């Protein structure tokens, strides 16, 4: 029986191109549908139960990797990507097939031969692989929606010099301005990257990169000089251990 396939890529031209190549090199393959984003790809695959899925990795909505994890178990997967060092390495390790764009006839021929002879990679292996590729991205707060007068702007975490508690809210101090975010300093402390931001006082969080000099006084408090601001800020005794080694 002839095999069936779907092609998924957010770039319409590339779908057409791969389709025409496949028709030429593997005329018996029945291309039963194409899709331009992850979600419609999943819907298509569930409906059509294809034997093979050519999946682009970078797509809006769900990525090719996410789609792969939810495909019918009988579907063999070939990832198609323009440039993904880390993913390609993982595919090689797990013996999952992949194509690099632009696709050459020779390379596509090899993939076709593999698909005709070999069974699909076990789903568990595939899911482990996808986890492997997508992992390591625990996310912290990188953007702040902050008020300045009556406008709201977006501030990048790397522009912050320090945060200063201001009643229920928090002042965001940058090189040249002070903004307000509607979050308490405690909430912020939980969401910020602890490697980049240190709480140094009940009411102050500083971006570590900004601290140029930490001077200890007799009571064990540290006075901190900042790179982009002239004022000094105080690190209270209970957070003093942060600067011990400096």
């Amino acid at each position, binding site marked *: 029986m002839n095999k069936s396939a779907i092609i998924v890529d*957010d*770039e319409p031209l*590339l779908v057409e191109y791969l389709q025409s190549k496949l028709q030429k090199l593997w005329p018996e393959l029945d291309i039963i549908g194409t899709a331009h984003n992850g979600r419609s790809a999943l819907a298509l695959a569930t409906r059509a139960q294809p034997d093979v899925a050519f999946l682009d990795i970078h797509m*809006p909505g769900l990525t090719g990797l996410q789609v792969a994890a939810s495909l019918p178990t009988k579907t063999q997967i070939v990832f198609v990507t323009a*440039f993904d060092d880390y993913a390609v390495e993982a595919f090689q390790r797990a013996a999952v097939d992949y194509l690099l764009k632009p696709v050459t006839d020779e390379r596509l021929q090899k993939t076709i031969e593999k698909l005709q002879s070999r069974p699909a990679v076990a789903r568990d292996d595939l899911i482990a692989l996808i986890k492997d590729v997508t992992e390591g991205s625990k996310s912290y*707060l*990188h*953007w702040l*929606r902050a008020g300045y007068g009556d406008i709201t702007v977006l501030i990048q975490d790397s522009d912050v010099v320090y945060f200063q508690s201001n009643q229920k809210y928090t002042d965001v101090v940058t090189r040249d301005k002070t903004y307000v975010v509607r979050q308490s300093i405690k909430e912020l402390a939980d969401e910020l990257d602890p490697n980049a931001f240190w709480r140094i006082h009940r009411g102050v969080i500083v971006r570590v990169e900004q601290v140029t000099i930490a001077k200890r006084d007799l009571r064990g408090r540290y006075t901190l000089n900042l790179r982009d601001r002239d004022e000094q800020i105080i690190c209270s005794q209970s957070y003093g251990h942060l600067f011990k080694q400096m």
Partner: protein
Amino acid sequence: MNKLAGFAYTALFCLGIAVLLSLLDVTEAFSETLIISLSIGWTIRASLVVFGPIVGSRLPAYVTTVVLTAAGLALGLGLAGLLNEGELLAYFSGNYASVILGVFFAIVGVSVFQAHSRLASAKAALVEADVVREKQEKALLSAELKLLQAQIEPHFLFNTLSNVVGLIHVDPVAAEKTLLNLTMLLRSSLNRTRQASVTLGEEMAIVRAYLEIQTIRMFDRLEFRFEPPEGEMTETLLNWPLPPLLVQPLVENAIKHGIDPSETGGSVIIKTKAIDNGIQIEIIDTGMGIDPNKSDAGSTGLKNVRGRLQALYGTQASLTLEDNEPSGLKVTLKILGDLE
């Protein structure tokens, strides 16, 4: 340490005075003269070191110096009287020769030492200014290096080439146009990093080339327009000097993180206008916008643009990000004055 050195130099100065006065036969015993001169020298030095910072914060510098010198002088003469004659006011009676000599050398000494310390602090300030300048230059250099590395994103390049390959047989004209656009983009990014400044018109041409390539890739998911269109921009705007690759990375961010991740896509508008003594460029997209809890998407590009703005314009330039209504992001770039 510095303060100790100050006292040592003062002692040397006082020794010199004692030797001079003895050689000139102005005074009788060398040891007596040395005690007077040292007492006065050190009390003046001590009074300036100890009380200088306290009084200095309230009074002008020259008043502080005069008052503290006079006090130190009186104290020193008293001390010398005690040491030499066993009487506090020994030198405040008779012919006042010691007082007159004391005042004269105090004035000479304090002037010399103050001039010296002023020179030293001026030198220190100069060194500090050098350090600051060096730091700024380093920041600029590193921003430029990062820019160079970030310019041609492999993913973009290979995807574009794949599209060209796909187009060659079906639509050779579009394939040609795309290759020409890619060529322009590559050439400009290679040339312009070595160039200090381009015009807004040139930058807009690059932005257009980039957007046309992206339209080929994303097809009906991307729309863009310039307001005003390049053809209707004033000469002043078109010839406005800018550092290279300032606007293009912002447009690239709008596509990469705003429009491309959206299933339905969206539009990008590039608005340019002259403002009072400057220029304003807005890049408005209707894409995904920023989810503060999720992404640090585009942060490298933005950091880079911001770093170069800061290094080149200081406070004369600003980069502001706002939510766009009903969706997406609005980036506003304002530059006052000319590029140096």
